[in-house]
């Protein structure tokens, strides 16, 4: 087994017991990137030298200071970061020509927290340009490939992060979600993705898409890893006024507690007719597993998620048009000519929806329906604890799929939009395969219930084997290597 295959938890234990060094761990990830990334294309930037320097520093600290891991739980552990987080002195492009040469002067709060916890940044991963998409196909640089099948998409917008995790090119990763951008690529690539409650993790230094929705969160190999990373990232930040002062829970204290008595709501409206064959069945089988773990399944009813597509399209594109107004090419970056077609379409629809005479019909109406969606969830959470539904209506689609539909992203994200609109946390967990491609289910809870949804996800993961499967490409490469010898 190569070190790059380890989970964060395993890496922590190995480093603590001095089974290997951070340098060996980091080197193993960098080697995997060299072996695979020409095919998968998960990374926009790899910072090999800096990472190696950090790893050596981590090894020194590990050797010198006892108990340092309590203070710095991620010490010596490599991470890939979606290229939407500002990283001081390290190029940050948001996969757009607009910022192709942009070198941030400061770190995003997420980056700062990760570094303070001892994490090492291996590189910056690909995404849809300005997060405008659910495929990575709108990236101005290249499309990332799904490690399970290189002719398929990884999902998006955090597609590079999810692909880097599944291909074992990193130990951990952090992405962002506006509606779907963590959970959907995690579902398509077959890993764990946690979108926290809006405001649980700071947005400071995250290149904005839609400010009333954007939520950074972990993309990792196991549910336990998601708890470990969230513990580091969560908390009030004075640089983000919308970050929440609600006390941060202890995410792994009760992680292993039994699921007994947890009430699981299953809304029939989310098992769509148009969902690709096999997905609904896989999720229903997972619900049986949760029932065996003594969860209580209840049928519930929620607003038809098709309405959420329209609400999300208006809110997101309006906020996009406002946020992207700042790109004038004066203080940094290229000017507005550098936006791609998808960027321009989103800006224009937003500008239209906000313009005189239309504001009330569109943006205001969408915000009112947002209230209805929030209230609908509040009502069902009086009778149940969590909701379990499929994450995506399809398995990973073929490369090229996003180009046919001007609302590809919004339609693909139908099952994650309502919970994002309500600011709820959601956790994607792998729950099966259809045609050799991963299927994800999501566990949604009330605001600030990350502890609970992680517990449900953890219980499921312990009794299933899906997350242990590895894409064929990882084995092929090893065989090629043997063949060369």
């Amino acid at each position: 087994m190569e070190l790059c295959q380890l989970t964060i938890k395993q890496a922590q234990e190995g480093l603590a017991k001095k089974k290997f060094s951070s340098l060996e761990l980091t080197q193993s990830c960098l080697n995997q990137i060299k072996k695979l990334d020409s095919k998968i294309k998960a990374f926009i930037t790899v910072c090999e030298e800096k990472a190696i320097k950090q790893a050596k520093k981590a090894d020194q600290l590990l050797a010198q200071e006892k108990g340092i891991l309590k203070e710095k739980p991620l010490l010596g552990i490599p991470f890939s970061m979606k290229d939407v987080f500002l990283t001081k002195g390290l190029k940050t492009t948001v996969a757009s020509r607009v910022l192709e040469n942009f070198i941030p002067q400061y770190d995003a709060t997420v980056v700062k927290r990760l570094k303070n916890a001892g994490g090492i940044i291996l590189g910056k991963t690909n995404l849809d340009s300005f997060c405008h998409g659910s495929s990575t196909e709108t990236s101005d640089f290249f499309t990332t490939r799904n490690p399970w099948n290189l002719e398929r998409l990884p999902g998006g917008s955090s597609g590079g992060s999810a692909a880097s995790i599944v291909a074992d090119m990193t130990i951990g990763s952090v992405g962002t979600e506006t509606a779907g951008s963590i959970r959907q690529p995690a579902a398509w690539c077959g890993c764990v993705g946690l979108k926290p409650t809006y405001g649980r993790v700071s947005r400071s230094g995250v290149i904005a898409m839609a400010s009333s929705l954007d939520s950074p969160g972990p993309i990792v190999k196991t549910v336990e890893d998601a708890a470990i990373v969230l513990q580091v990232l969560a908390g009030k930040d004075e640089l983000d006024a919308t970050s929440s002062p609600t006390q941060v829970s202890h995410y792994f204290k009760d992680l292993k507690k039994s699921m007994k008595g947890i009430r699981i709501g299953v809304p029939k409206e989310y098992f769509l007719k148009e969902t690709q064959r096999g997905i609904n069945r896989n999720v229903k089988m997972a619900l049986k597993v949760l029932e065996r773990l003594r969860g209580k399944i209840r049928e519930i009813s929620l607003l038809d998620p098709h309405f959420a597509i329209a609400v999300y399209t208006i809110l997101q594109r309006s906020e996009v048009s406002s946020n992207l107004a700042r790109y004038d090419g004066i203080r940094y970056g290229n000017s507005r000519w550098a936006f791609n077609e998808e960027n321009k379409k989103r800006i224009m629809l937003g500008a239209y929806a906000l313009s005189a005479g239309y504001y009330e019909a569109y943006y205001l109406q969408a915000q009112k329906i947002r209230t209805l969606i929030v209230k609908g969830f509040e009502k069902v959470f009086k009778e149940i604890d969590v909701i379990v539904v499929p994450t995506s209506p399809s398995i990973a689609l073929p490369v090229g799929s996003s180009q046919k539909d001007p609302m590809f992203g919004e339609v693909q994200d139908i099952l994650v939009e309502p919970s994002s609109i309500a600011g709820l946390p959601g956790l994607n967990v792998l729950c099966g395969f259809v045609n050799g491609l991963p299927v994800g289910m999501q566990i949604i809870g009330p605001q600030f219930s990350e502890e609970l949804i992680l517990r449900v996800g953890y219980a499921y993961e312990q009794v299933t084997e899906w997350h242990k499967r590895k894409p064929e490409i990882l084995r092929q490469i090893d065989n090629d290597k043997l063949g060369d010898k």
Partner: protein
Amino acid sequence: MLSLSEVKHVARLANLKLSEDEFEKFQKQLSDVVAYIEKLKQLKTKGVEPTSQVTGLENVFREDKVKSSMTQVEALSNTRETYKGFFKVKAIF
């Protein structure tokens, strides 16, 4: 259906320069999206308050104290043109 002049107006509002081909393409695609979002008119929202902040925060203040910030050199580090330590911009008149 959005008219071509509406599309041109919106492009001007958003300060985007589009080619003739793009105008036509966007006219069709934006019209499709607008037709889709019309769906929302089906829902009754009389008396419903709009939501803009989902966790209910209001008026978040901080102490009005001066803190250290970026240096002038850092602040200018990503710009193409400077003039005596300032950002250089085109005349607006």
